[in-house]
């Protein structure tokens, strides 16, 4: 395997290490979860590739791609596959528990505190403002992702049509997501498959 040396510390630039125990997995994933405000993935890259040196940058990208293609929370998929690869199902559980246990406790304490003070106009106002920012952050993610659509084999018009149809059906008409995602998802996959096929046969 090839380890990139650009981000590595000075000592033993090529040597990748391995997680030695479930306890170590739990500690590392717990630490990176607690450092992740508004998303854990960037912190995961720093922890696994740069600090612990458990993965080369290339291995990390492969793991990330696999976790994103699979349905479900990406960072959980990543922790599961990573933990299982080194220490079996116990490792998978340890990594997942590390990600979730302490942050879940913190979030639930915050939620319970909010419930107690929800009638306080200052608290209610602050939460309304935070909710508006949360909405903005998610819309911004969509805008940033939309910039990558240029490389999509479907092409811009089809991407825009599928994206708009999804937004209207799920966000505005409030149709159940099952039918929309299965229907439009199948349509998008078949169209992309045909385009990719056509590209492959015309390429030299």
């Amino acid at each position, binding site marked *: 395997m090839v380890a990139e040396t650009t981000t590595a510390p000075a000592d033993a630039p090529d040597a990748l290490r391995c997680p030695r125990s479930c306890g170590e997995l739990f500690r590392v994933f717990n630490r990176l*979860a*607690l450092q992740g*405000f*508004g998303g854990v993935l960037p912190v995961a890259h720093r922890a696994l590739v740069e600090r612990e040196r458990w993965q080369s940058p290339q291995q990390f990208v*492969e793991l990330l791609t*696999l976790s994103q293609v*699979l*349905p*479900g*929370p990406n*960072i959980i*998929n990543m922790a*599961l*596959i990573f933990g*299982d690869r080194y220490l079996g199902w116990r490792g*998978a559980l340890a990594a*997942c528990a590390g990600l979730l246990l302490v*942050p*879940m406790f*913190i*979030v*639930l304490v915050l939620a319970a505190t*909010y419930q107690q003070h929800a009638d306080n*106009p200052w*608290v209610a106002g*602050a939460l*309304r*403002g*935070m*909710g*508006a*920012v*949360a*909405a*903005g*952050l998610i*819309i911004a993610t969509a*805008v*940033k*992702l939309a910039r990558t*659509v240029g490389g*999509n084999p*479907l092409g811009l018009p089809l*991407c825009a049509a*599928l*994206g708009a*149809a*999804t*937004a209207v059906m799920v966000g505005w008409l*409030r149709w*159940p*997501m099952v039918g929309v*995602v299965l229907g*439009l998802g199948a349509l*998008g*996959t*078949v169209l*992309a*498959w045909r385009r*990719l096929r056509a590209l492959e046969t015309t390429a030299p």
Partner: protein
Amino acid sequence: MSIAALLGTHGLGWDDLLALWLHFSVLSLLAVGGAITTAPDMQRYLVGEQGWMDDAQFTAGVAIAQAAPGPNILFVAVMGWHVAGVAGVLATMLGIMGPSSLLAFAVGRYGRRRADSIGLRAFTAGLTPLTLGLLLSTGWVLTAPTRHQPMAVALVLGTVALSVASRISPMWLIAAGAVVGALALR
């Protein structure tokens, strides 16, 4: 006293908890592009269909999870907590994580398919527009409690502009939102 009552389920019975778990299990396998893309359907189910919480509580739940450290998926735990306490957390979290985790486990172990196979590339490319549409829907649904207030609309648009144009940490934007909200959205 039943175990459900001991766990403080806010009056929900076993059949309700089972329905909650089942609904989130289905969403688990539909969560292409992250768990947050399923938020519109959670809102449709929890607020519209079951009436277990209102728009303001739903949006506040997502905001609290974003303001806290840890994976974004934890907004699902907050939903469960609002609906049925500890039992609700178990139902929603086991639901949203269960099926997708089993699939990830199996794929990671037995089916390490090459990421450049044409089928997988078509699947990712075909679903990308849906992810974008679902993220926009999520944003729209979260503005439901405040979209009639000009200051809240300004906060949404300002956040979009700032996070697209700069690399500012979401933490600062959420903190700014809390201050602006406490002063101007009471």
